[in-house]
């Protein structure tokens, strides 16, 4: 180094010494803060405080504040009972949640109450079965209309949405309910159509959309007749499900040899045998493709943030979305907004000749499933808080007052705008699930993507396009079913482990009859579960066989 640099180094030496000391100081400070931040927490709270954590991915405004209010109330009441309790709330963005959820379950010490996601295998492996606890009434419902009902019956759908069909077991309870509605920008609607009463049938709706498009051309404004939030494919799935049920609800009578409802394997068997035309399953695709021509282009990419931007910009007439951010959209919109249901497929419409009209929404749309992992350190407290959260008074405090969502419980009255969100119950036709979206999560995602492509490309025969593309991805669907079958077979071994544990439980409790009764009931549940496992395995084998035999569009059955 030249001389000039050398003395520079020494003069810099003092400056760097200062830097070094500053770094050491900062390090010591951060060590103190880290200790205070995590280790110190237990020191700060007296050791006999029981701490549990609740985690979820609902970042909508109002949800976190609602849970905080419930926590404050819970800590106060438990202090009244002489129990020191601290509940921590963790909210993770939906994009990172599936991975965050799975790694902590495998990692070792998961949060005590978790919003559940993922496959049945994961739920069965990591979450406590709740069936022994749902029979007795929820202790927090004393003095409310649900007092006499068992915890299970206190839910609007008797906990059917929380039932895991693969293991016929309850691993979670539902905390809120959503329905899908249309938010209508009344100012734009009236300007374009000149009418004030809103469409109730599909024909009127499409007619209004056509007028809106013409209005947009006339005004040289980028009018989007129907705005859809595509990024998590939820809304597309909802619309397809609604029209599929309105067209195919009668299939439930014949769609399964074992009882009411439809099984994909049986439907495909009927198609191969010529007893059923695949057209019946594909007409809803044509309806959604026709509705889809009024969507914004690039709709699959629109996420929640852009939804609000587009809607408030005033260029979207009908916005289809769940009722989770309905209230904030209605209040913050710079124009009057009304809410209507998804218009019904009417008989005048060319595809509506055989439609069955509106479908009951009773028991559908109940979500927000929270479960308790087996590895939790304080199961008793976690269960108590979960029952607190799903008690009549508190659930309304969180959901209805704070989030303006609907509660998942019975006997809940709504007023004002929220009345529009209540589920439709004045019809006797039940929803039915389509084979394209009910075989597995991968097949469902591929089908919804296929639906989006059909909307974007507007093929002259959407049914042929959808069907042939469905067969094109047959390999991946078969792979998913095979994986599910392995999961079921592997699970037979762990279910036998449960049987054995219950048997040893019976041996242990020799005389104590009440305990024996519970063990016998649970071993019966276990054996009934094994029978339903046989059903699932046989259904999968039949489905793979029949799916393999399906032929190109129009060539089946003859």
């Amino acid at each position, binding site marked *: 180094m030249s001389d000039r640099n050398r003395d520079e180094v020494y003069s810099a030496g003092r400056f760097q010494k200062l830097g070094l000391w500053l770094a050491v100081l900062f390090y010591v400070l951060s060590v103190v803060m880290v200790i205070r931040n995590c280790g110190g927490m237990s020191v700060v709270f007296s050791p006999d405080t029981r701490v549990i954590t609740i985690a979820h991915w609902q970042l909508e405004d109002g949800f976190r504040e609602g849970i905080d209010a419930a926590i404050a109330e819970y800590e106060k009441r438990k202090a009244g009972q002489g129990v020191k309790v601290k509940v921590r709330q963790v909210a993770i963005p939906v*994009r*990172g949640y*599936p*991975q965050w959820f*799975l*790694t902590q*379950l*495998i990692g070792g010490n998961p949060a005590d109450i978790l919003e559940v996601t*993922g*496959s049945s*295998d*994961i739920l069965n*492996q990591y979450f406590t079965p709740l069936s022994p606890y749902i029979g007795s009434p929820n202790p927090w419902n004393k003095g409310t209309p649900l007092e006499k009902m068992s915890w299970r019956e206190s839910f609007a759908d008797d906990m059917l949405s929380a039932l895991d069909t693969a293991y016929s077991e309850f691993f979670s309870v539902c905390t809120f309910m959503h329905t899908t509605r249309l938010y209508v920008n009344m100012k734009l609607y009236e300007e374009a159509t000149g009418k004030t009463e809103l469409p109730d049938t599909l024909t009127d709706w499409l007619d209004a959309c056509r007028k809106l498009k013409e209005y947009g051309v006339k005004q040289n404004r*980028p009018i989007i007749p129907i705005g859809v939030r595509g*990024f998590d494919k939820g809304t597309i799935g909802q619309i397809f499900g609604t029209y599929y049920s309105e067209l195919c609800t009668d299939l439930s009578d014949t769609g399964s040899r074992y009882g009411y409802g439809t099984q994909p394997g049986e439907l495909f068997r009927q198609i191969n045998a010529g007893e059923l035309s695949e057209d019946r399953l594909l007409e809803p695709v044509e309806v959604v493709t026709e509705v889809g021509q009024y969507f914004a282009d*690039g709709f*699959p*990419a629109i996420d929640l*943030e*852009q939804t609000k*931007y587009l809607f408030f*910009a005033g*260029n979207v007439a009908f916005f289809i979305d769940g009722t989770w951010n309905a209230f904030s959209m209605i209040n913050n919109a710079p124009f009057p907004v009304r809410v209507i249901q998804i218009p019904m497929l009417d008989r005048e419409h060319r595809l509506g000749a055989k439609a069955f009209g509106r479908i009951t929404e009773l028991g559908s749309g109940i979500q927000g499933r929270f479960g308790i992992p087996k590895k939790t350190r304080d199961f008793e407290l976690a269960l108590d808080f979960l029952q607190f959260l799903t008690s009549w008074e508190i659930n309304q405090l969180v959901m209805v007052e704070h989030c303006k969502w609907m509660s998942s419980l019975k006997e809940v009255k709504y007023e004002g705008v929220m009345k529009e969100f209540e589920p439709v119950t004045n019809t006797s036709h039940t929803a039915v699930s389509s084979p394209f979206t009910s075989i597995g999560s991968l097949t469902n995602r591929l089908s919804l*993507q296929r639906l989006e492509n059909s909307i974007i490309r507007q093929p002259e025969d959407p049914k042929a396009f959808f069907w042939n593309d469905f067969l094109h991805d047959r*390999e991946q669907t078969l*792979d998913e079913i095979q994986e599910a079958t*392995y999961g079921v077979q*592997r699970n037979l071994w762990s279910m036998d482990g449960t049987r054995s544990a219950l048997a040893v439980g019976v041996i242990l409790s020799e005389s104590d009859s009440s305990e024996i009764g519970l063990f016998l009931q649970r071993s019966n549940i276990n054996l009934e579960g094994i029978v339903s496992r046989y059903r699932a395995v046989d259904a999968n084998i039949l489905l793979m066989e029949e799916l393999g035999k399906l032929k190109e569009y129009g060539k089946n059955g003859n």
Partner: protein
Amino acid sequence: MAIEVPFRKLRYYWPAYLLIALPLLLVLVFSYHPIVNGMWHMFYRWDGDTVEEFVGFQNIVRMWRDSSLLHSFFVVTIFVVANIVKMALPIIVAVVLHHVISDRMGYLYRILFVIPMIIPGMVGILIWKYFYEPNSGILNNLLRMMGFISPTETIQWLSDELLVIPSLVFMGFPWVGAFGVLIYLAGLQGISEDVYEAAEIDGAGPLTVFFKIELPLIMTQVRINLILMIIGTIQSWENIYLFLGADGGPGGIATVPGLLIFREAFARGLFGYGCAIGFVIFVVTLVLTLINNRFVRVRK
């Protein structure tokens, strides 16, 4: 110059092995054990917790059939090629910087070039995510100001299957990592004065000076950066995860192998399959590094 210790002197010098004991232990437990464990679990259906079923070559057959894996290597090749092209700019900047006459300005520039490096990586990526944000992002605002698109129109840079990969390539535009520029600059400083004078006498123009003298000299640094870049690009999946989430953009088009491991293992729970993909990445990196060492010979 170091002390030669043949076998017979071991009796006296054996404590020296204590020096290497701790680093060796750490490397064995935290690097070599996972490598072996990964290769072992390639042949298992493993959910990372209790389920470990030997399934032989099922994972490998599944990989062969899995179109998203083949696609992910195709996508990562695009990124590698793009990064090779992007290496040109730092070299040019280093050469130009080298020829800047005033010493003080040169030193000031060097400092300025390092500053972008000290922003945390995460901040840089999130700012670029804002750059592409359809409604209020910089790019669309710019295009609206310049009239290329109408005031309310939005171009979906990260959600359109055609645009997402070019956007990811373009990200971090000047691509001038301080690491690259300063390393090349150090190489250039090695050239002595008389070499330039000799070139001056033969009447060599700036371009021939560059290609004949400067480029060959910094080839060693370029080669090192090339290898590090290739390994880095094949491994890196963080920006794609941050930009597009675990699905890897519309239709999973931008899924790179690293992101595929992350998704298959940590979101879907297929740990055995994740190990299998990891092994494939290791093999591909090894092959590329060997090729690189042999063909990018440094002409001394």
